[in-house]
């Protein structure tokens, strides 16, 4: 009987302790509205997650200084998504069901964001994506509560492929990180390059968080491309460029990469391998654009570092707050309706407008050549030219094949 009582006591203590832990995260204050910041806080995409948090913080500080939203002080609840779908879903559920957030910004990894989209759809919460770029988000996975101001793979391909073929070379090798984001970029760039008459001489994917890329270098050298297009991000990009440089391949091939390949903050440390690299970016602190400069100044004043592409998170909070004020409600259906077609000034790239059909912000993009660790603007692509037709519900990769079509 003693043992029975003891066991019952253990179960009770565990339950009560767990409840206390869960309860510890909640706040009893009234007139507070919570928003969720879900992203990678450690690991391969740590830089993006932490910078996105800073951008959200800046937006919330500005809004709270003016009285918050609908008279509510905004509070940020930050969670680490572990860069994996499983933890992302668990944390998204925690943010929505436990913390009752009215806006969820995140995640960083495309695979995680895709998984979180199911959660925000199910629980009807406004979901803003400012970093992930897989093409399924505004097509097959799209839902009415999802919004994005991160140019997705299709937009990036439309923006960069023509420049590559016109200025850099016709024979392109695509090397991508083998998960949602990289596969998406690989598919869209292959499609765009081939459509414009270029030749894809080889494609290869390396797993996320690969430590040694050299096993793939032999195949790249064998095909001898004019351009080596790389679709990686975070510490993967740092390692890849360092290793390519040590093999002499950054000098041998012209190189180009995607929007999130490296953050500005990383460039000085890897200036030599990155010299001459052409990168697509929708934001750079080195762009003379007055809106970008104005945003970068206040970001730098607040955090002591330059802003970057993850500052789209700042816009997400501002868009949501504007929509809430417009409809005088936190109701997700009303806010979603208000966000459709909404335009906003003063974002990190100036004025932005959300396209009603697929909730994608129409955004100009810029091409930069990296010189001595800095982005030097070389071209601008209008958002209207790169965004492409809305494809909600349609398969964006229908008929796609990784097969290499040899040109004679």
């Amino acid at each position, binding site marked *: *009987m003693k*043992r*029975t009582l*003891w*066991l*019952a006591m*253990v*179960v*009770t203590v*565990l*339950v009560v302790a*767990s*409840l206390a*832990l*869960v*309860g510890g*995260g909640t706040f009893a204050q009234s007139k507070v509205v919570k928003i969720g910041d879900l992203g990678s*806080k*450690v690991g391969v995409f740590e830089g993006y997650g932490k910078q996105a948090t800073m951008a959200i913080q800046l937006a919330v500080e500005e809004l709270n200084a003016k009285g918050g939203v609908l008279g509510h002080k905004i509070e940020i609840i930050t*969670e*680490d998504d*572990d860069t*994996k*779908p*499983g*933890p992302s*879903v*668990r*944390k998204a*559920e*925690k943010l*929505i*069901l*436990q913390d009752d957030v009215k806006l969820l910004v995140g995640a960083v990894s*495309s*695979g995680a964001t*895709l*998984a979180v*989209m*199911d959660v925000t759809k199910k629980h009807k919460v406004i979901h803003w994506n400012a970093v992930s770029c897989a093409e399924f988000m505004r097509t097959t*996975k799209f839902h009415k509560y999802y919004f994005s101001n991160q140019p997705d793979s299709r937009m990036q391909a439309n923006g960069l492929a023509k420049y590559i073929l016109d200025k850099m070379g016709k024979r392109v090798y695509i090397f991508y990180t*083998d*998960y*949602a984001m990289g*596969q998406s970029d690989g598919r869209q760039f292959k499609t765009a390059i081939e459509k414009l008459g270029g030749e894809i001489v080889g494609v290869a994917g390396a*797993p*996320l968080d690969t430590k040694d890329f050299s096993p793939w270098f032999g195949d790249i050298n064998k095909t001898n491309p004019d351009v080596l297009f790389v679709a990686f991000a975070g510490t993967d990009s740092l390692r890849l460029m360092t290793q390519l440089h040590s093999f002499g391949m950054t000098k041998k091939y012209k190189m180009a990469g995607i929007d999130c390949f490296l953050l500005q903050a990383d460039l000085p440390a890897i200036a030599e391998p990155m010299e001459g690299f052409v990168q697509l970016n929708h934001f750079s602190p080195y762009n003379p654009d007055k809106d970008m400069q104005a945003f970068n100044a206040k970001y730098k004043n607040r955090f002591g570092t330059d802003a970057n592409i993850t500052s789209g998170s700042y816009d997400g909070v501002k868009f949501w707050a504007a929509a809430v004020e417009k409809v005088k409600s936190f109701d997700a259906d009303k806010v979603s309706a208000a966000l459709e077609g909404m335009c906003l000034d003063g974002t990190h790239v100036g004025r932005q407008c959300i396209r009603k059909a697929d909730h994608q912000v129409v955004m100009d993009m810029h091409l930069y050549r990296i010189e001595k660790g800095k982005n030097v603007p070389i071209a601008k692509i209008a958002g209207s030219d790169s965004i492409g037709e809305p494809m909600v519900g349609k398969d964006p990769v229908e008929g796609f094949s990784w097969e290499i079509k040899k040109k004679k």
Partner: protein
Amino acid sequence: MRPGEYRALVVFAALAALPFVPGMSRYYLLLAFDALLFGTIAMSLDLLMGYTGLVSFGHAAFYGLGAYATAVLLERGYTSLPLCLAFSIVVVGLYAAVVAYFATARRGIYFALLTLIFAEVIYTIFRYTQTFGGSDGIQGLPDAHFWPGVPIETAMQKYYLVLGYLVFAYVVCRVLVASHFGRVLVAIRENEERARFLGYDVQRYKMVVCVISALLTGLAGAIYPMRSAFATPDLMVWTESGEFIISVMIGGIGTLVGPIIGGAFFTILRDKVSSYVDWYFIVIGLVLIFIVLVMPKGLLGIRRLFRRTVEA
């Protein structure tokens, strides 16, 4: 009713009442789902580790295969719970039979390595096969159904599903270890040569317990997509197997109940600590080191600590 059965009944009744505890949220019920599922898997592994003396580093593969079996069916519109479970039994059973056949032919570290290698092969296959969604797995799955017209959609339904499975798995394990078969397993753990000398077909016993443990883990995996709506290769990665082993150790090896507590404790600790600290695994590591050093019998061994303190 025997005292052990009475105790189990009290504990399961307390768990059944959990959804009605004041302040219980849907999120906490989902967290309880994860905790009990992890605990069930740890208990299944305890059959091997605690009772047979075999350490498997490949249980994540059984778990992941079960999850994928369900995910493949749900993705194609086959949402029946019994069908998903039956399909998982077939898939995991076939794989487990192959692994068990080869792995049980070796002992100790070689058994552990073979289970790890098989699991890594399975992980790599799923990681690179686009039919199964590659590295992103199969996502956006619809709700499963208890039977036609009754979907498993609420947090409470999901909680009772996993609780029901925990009860089932516990009864299976308890009956097994109390049987002659279970005593032979303990004999194998204590002295394999002597068990063989006494005429027992040691490898056959090890194979059978390996497959049973794998099936119980695979069925837990089959339930997971009904809560998460996805199955990804991350479920099969070797670190997941490591977490199962840790759960067994911190709960109390060779006790069945201990690993359930260990798995639940590990899940809740990971979830809560990661909400407050970025490098949460360092904190978790320190807690685990403390448990191993101070409570070598695991959390279940805390009774002795209390008893000693009281006596002192």
